């Protein structure tokens, strides 16, 4: 299993002190970033758990950063923005850029509650309260602890290798993997049948996900496969 993400990226130059205090008191691990390059440079091996972007001080740079975070191969999500009351009018055009927002000056308890809720929903490991063993994505729920997967609440009957493949893909949504990478990461050394095995298992998984959800696994022509949409791309 890949290491679960627990580090939050924090933007604000410098990061607002009340935000930093709230995060520290809530036991969140965070790292201040100044731009998209910084996000890539400091990205932990397990990926970011999410991001908090303060938009009230320098809205233009902040929104540009939000957009950049969404456009990455692996979008940084979930993303919470801090806004001043006067900015509420700006957000209707930008609904796709963030998952939740909080008005400044914020109440620390409210921000903490919003963060906890948002990270939990995303299955991220940023706080002790969340459930890193649960991956949820567009109707699919996968519980790493119990080895069970369900689509729209209905259990999926998977073989072991189908489960392992789905788990790997679902834990890395939006990211494109070649057959070779999937073969070595999912099958490891015991694989059998070569890269074509991957195609066969993808087809089997799609069949089991059913017509409505088989598009969860996308074929990226002459590259490989991707789980989920690059909604922001």
């Amino acid at each position, binding site marked *: 299993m890949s290491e679960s993400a627990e580090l939050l990226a924090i933007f604000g130059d410098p990061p607002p002190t009340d935000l930093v205090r709230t995060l520290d008191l809530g036991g969140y691990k965070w790292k201040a970033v100044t731009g998209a390059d910084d996000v890539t440079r400091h990205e932990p091996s397990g990926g970011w758990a999410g991001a908090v972007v303060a938009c009230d001080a320098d809205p233009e740079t902040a929104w540009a950063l939000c957009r950049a975070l969404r456009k990455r191969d692996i979008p940084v999500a979930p993303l919470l923005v801090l806004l001043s009351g006067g900015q509420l009018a700006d957000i209707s055009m930008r609904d796709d850029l963030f998952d939740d927002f909080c008005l400044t000056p914020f109440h620390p308890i409210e921000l903490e509650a919003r963060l906890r809720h948002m990270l939990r929903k995303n299955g991220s490991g940023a706080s002790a309260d969340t459930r890193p063993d649960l991956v949820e994505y567009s109707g699919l729920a996968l519980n790493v602890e119990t080895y069970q997967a369900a689509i729209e609440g209905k259990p999926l009957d998977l073989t072991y290798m189908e489960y392992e493949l789905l788990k790997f893909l679902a834990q890395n949504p939006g990211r494109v993997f070649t057959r070779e990478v999937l073969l070595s990461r999912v099958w490891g050394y015991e694989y059998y049948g070569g890269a074509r095995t991957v195609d*066969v298992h993808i087809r089997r998984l799609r069949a089991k996900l059913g017509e409505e959800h088989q598009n969860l696994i996308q074929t990226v022509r002459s590259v490989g496969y991707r789980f989920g949409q690059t909604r922001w791309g």
Partner: protein
Amino acid sequence: MNEEQRNYVLRTVEERGVRLVRLWFTDVLGNLKSFAISPVELENALEDGMTFDGSSIDGFSRVQESDVLAVPDANTFEVLPWGDTKTPEARVFCDIHNLDGTPFEGDPRQVLKRNLAAARALGLTFFVAPDMEYFYFAPPQRGQAPEPLDEAGFFDLTTSDISDSMRKQTIRTLEAMGIPVEYSFHEDAPSQHEIDLRHNDGLSMADSIMTFRLVVKEVAASQGVHASFMPKPLEGVQGSGMHVHLSLFSGEENAFYSPDDAYNLSPIAKHFMAGLLRHAAEITAVTNQTVNSYKRLVPGFEAPVHISWARNNRSGLIRVPIPKKGNPMATRIEYRSPDPACNPYLAFSVILAAGMRGIRDSYELPVEADANLFQLDDAQLAALGIDQIPASLGDALKVMETSELVKEALGDHIFEWFLRNKRNEWRSYKAHVSAFEHDRYLRSL
């Protein structure tokens, strides 16, 4: 078995409340056998296998020792998508071992594994996509001719609705079990259907065919209908075949593909085809193992009779289909004689062994036979060097018993048991006096 795999199986049984785990294996004749264990026994079964008395299984009996071990292949563990959802059941395919842990030589699945491993040792993986044909009938009565649904007036609803809905239900169940379907349609004969499965590696596909036959029969039975894989159930119309589309892959590359050939066939593909053609007569008793199989292999019903190949001639034994959009991955050959009543593990074993022999000894592929061979007489066929597939089970067994290749592919135990069993079948058939004879001779002679 790795720990994760075992935990996956055990945890799934617990989480899903599985009440029974069915251990599946296959006898030498290709019948699915099963015994059920309760979840509490599963951990032990995964670890050490389950001992059972093999003497009751066709082809498993041996002189001294009758106990064998069924060892679950955890990769094939699946919750069954039918039955009561409140008391779910699961199945797992098993390999049969001797009590000392060595592979049991009477187990068809291990025979196939051995043949696949031989190809893999040369870097080649065997892929198969079968076209499965079968009929729906009213429940059969002993001594009476089968009654196709389309004609039977068996239902108040129009029968084509019923059989189409059964076919759809079958496909949904297959897909739920990870057996993807490529095409399906109503075949030419009344109540005949075809479901084409998407390619998979040889072992998974043989497992899938075992599952497929069960699913087709279960779905039909739930509607009070009998589904049959009998090769030629009705006189005067097409029988049911199991054409197999074959290819060998070397890693991600299709070893059958070559951009330099007019038909895009590589030298490996041609040697493989030559091997299949040269040994076709020897392997036919295995790919067509019933007396009835040979009534399908007659001229006039799109079944092969001659040992020949062609790009687009359906009277030949091997056809080279034209891949969609010239896709190199889809270059393959279609071997057309097998029928769905075969044992898929053994059929794939001998097909692969014949092809691999052609590769090993660089057999030369005979020239393509693109004429309609059914219009040629024996002298013309002989001039082209074209033989025929054995005309009866008796003939096929005679060729098979001289075959060192089939003996090696099946192993001594199965080779000898199979010949013994099938010679008995042929003898019983020879002693049978048929309606054909009564009609033809009783009055006139």
